[in-house]
């Protein structure tokens, strides 16, 4: 049963559609959405409905910091741009959509797998995994063999041995990586809705538990369409521009 690991969708309908179609064509049968369904993009309602539909058919979904912010309403500490996006997004959603976000769990464990948005040591504090130090901290905070998380928008793979040796790896899209059973792994598929590694194509990953094989993927999508919608919605133009550059 192949998992599609999809995260940081950020209300980007065009990217989500392209990724779902790609995943289906590669044989994905299970879906895990790792949070941040809204924020930045112009289609929050559509993206939430899409995730909710998958969840009703058994998919995993966890809460992201952007989702939490939209549920809570803007915080006084937010920069004006973020505040504007949160207020705009809230106005687009109906009660059922807001309720769906409000009831999302912070983390889901399934057999030897942990799905969480930011990290395993304090999921509700939204600390970032920016390097090996944080990756090891997260890996040591869980018993799961595989941790799948989002929050960081660049694809990355960390590993830890029983003797405490660690490593990080920037993956190459399309190369299947066998995840050895003698170590534990932290997988960051990279953002679907707002990639930031200089490549505008949407990120996601496929994971096959039976063979412990992970494949990072990149999917080109209609960036022009998604970015035009952001401008038309009156959201900050910077959010439209950055999609073109993937940064």
């Amino acid at each position, binding site marked *: 049963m192949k998992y599609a690991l999809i995260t940081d969708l950020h209300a980007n309908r065009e990217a989500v559609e392209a990724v779902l179609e790609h995943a289906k064509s590669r044989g994905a049968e299970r879906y895990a959405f790792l949070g941040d369904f809204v924020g930045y993009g112009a289609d929050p309602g559509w993206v939430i409905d899409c995730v909710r539909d998958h969840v009703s058919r058994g998919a995993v979904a966890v809460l992201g910091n952007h989702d939490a912010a939209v549920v809570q309403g803007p915080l006084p500490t937010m920069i004006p741009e973020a505040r504007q996006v949160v207020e705009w997004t809230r106005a687009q959603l109906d009660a059922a959509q807001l309720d769906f976000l409000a009831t999302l769990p912070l983390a889901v464990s399934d057999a030897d797998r942990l799905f969480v948005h930011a990290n395993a040591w304090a999921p509700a504090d939204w600390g970032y995994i920016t390097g090996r130090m944080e990756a090891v901290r997260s890996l040591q905070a869980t018993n799961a063999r595989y941790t799948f998380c989002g929050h960081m928008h660049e694809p990355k793979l960390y590993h*830890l041995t029983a003797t405490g*040796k660690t*490593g990080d790896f920037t993956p190459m899209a399309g190369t299947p990586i066998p995840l050895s059973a003698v*170590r534990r792994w932290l997988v960051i598929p990279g953002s679907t809705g707002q990639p930031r590694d200089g490549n505008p194509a949407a990120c996601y990953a496929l994971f096959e538990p039976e063979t412990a094989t992970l494949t990072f993927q990149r999917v080109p999508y209609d960036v022009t369409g998604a970015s035009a919608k952001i401008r038309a919605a009156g959201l900050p133009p910077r959010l439209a521009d950055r999609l073109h550059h993937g940064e």
Partner: protein
Amino acid sequence: MASEAPARFAPLQVGQVVDAYRIEERLHQGGMANLWRVTRADGTATEPLIMKVPRIKGGEDPASIVGFEVEQMIMPALGGLHVPKFIAKGDFTGQPYIVMEHIAGGSLRPRLDDAPIPLDEVVQIGAKVATALHDLHRQHVIHLDVKPSNVLFRPTGEAVLIDFGLSRHDRLPDLLEEEFELPMGTGPYMSPEQVQFVRNDPRSDLFALGVMLYHFSTGVRPFGAPTTVRGLRKRLYEQPVPPRTLRPETPPWLQELILRCLEVQPAKRPASAAQLAFELQHPEQVVLTERAERQARKTGRFELFKRWFGAVGAEPVVAGGATTQTARAPILLAALDVAGAEPGLLEAVRETVERLLRTEPSARLACLTVMKTHLIGTDELVEPDGSSKHLNLLVQLKHWAHPIVKALEAQGRGDAGRVTFHVLEAPDPANAIVEYAAKNQVDHVVMGARSSGGLRRYLGSVSAQVAAEADCTVTVVRT
């Protein structure tokens, strides 16, 4: 922590069935792993198989565990004639193993005891191993432990590389990166950059091959068999005794190639394994430098100090990995009908070749023409005026390439055998070109297409056949 330390497993017994495989007989007991001959337990397929099982001492032996992990990760990603075919693996949650094709021929290791061995055999071994290495490098993998015991031969003659426990795959995580505090590899064969912990230069494998060829030629190891890091570091500044000093009948071109492989700086070694294989198969094309005639002399204390000083704190240049370095050093083949083609077409082919050479700074160019011979009967090898046909073609080929050679010289790239010339004699030019390209791991063939339709219909199209049958990229130039 969920990662259970690998448990100790009861020793395997003959007749035991592990997953889908029956243990038949132990073939080899090594320090790191045992090899068993196995068959499929369900009796299907009878191909010879072996099972490699790591020896785990006391459950806490990172070296053998990580090496085996690396091999389990890399082997399934490899294919082709020059590696054993991967069949199955079992991970450390159960009985760890790798089942692979059994290569019937033995390893090169026993032959080392006979060294020095005949020089033409040394050359043959070198060409075969370099060919195998190039195939590995093209699959994004650097072996990093090339030595005679890791080279086998198929009954059909091809070299097969085994043991990928220290290897590095460009597109997979490097599980060894953090593992050891000592340089990884086998003392006598380890390249200077491996001593300095660089694990992403495919030319490290050429250094190791150079050590092998040196040992087979002279009967001694170029840098001994050091067991300390201090001993290993000596190769950063000490030069090996030139092979011709130890074995005077070593041809200068072979000494040139061996010493080139043993250069401290990877950039001074052959740019790719394919380029080395090419030169080993074309001794007459090897451009000789000072290396070819170098003789042992006592290195002055001052010079040794200079070289030692240069090595202190010298940071190795980090290469781009197997993929980048191999792609950067392609072999281009210009196949020309110098005697028959239209001058305009020859010019157009030359322009295309020039464009390709400009974009690939480490590329080499082989210029080739085929002298058509008859299948039956004797061929006239001399022109009516008594001159040699072969020589005339060579002259024309060099004349065609002259502007290219001049341009390369002007860019400071007119070095060591950058452009070579070959006249083949064969009844079927297309076949000859395809075979030549395969044998020399040519990356890109450039050739012209016959222009006139009538002639093409009558003679068939050589370029169409080459484009259809060659394994590499083929550019067909038209005017």
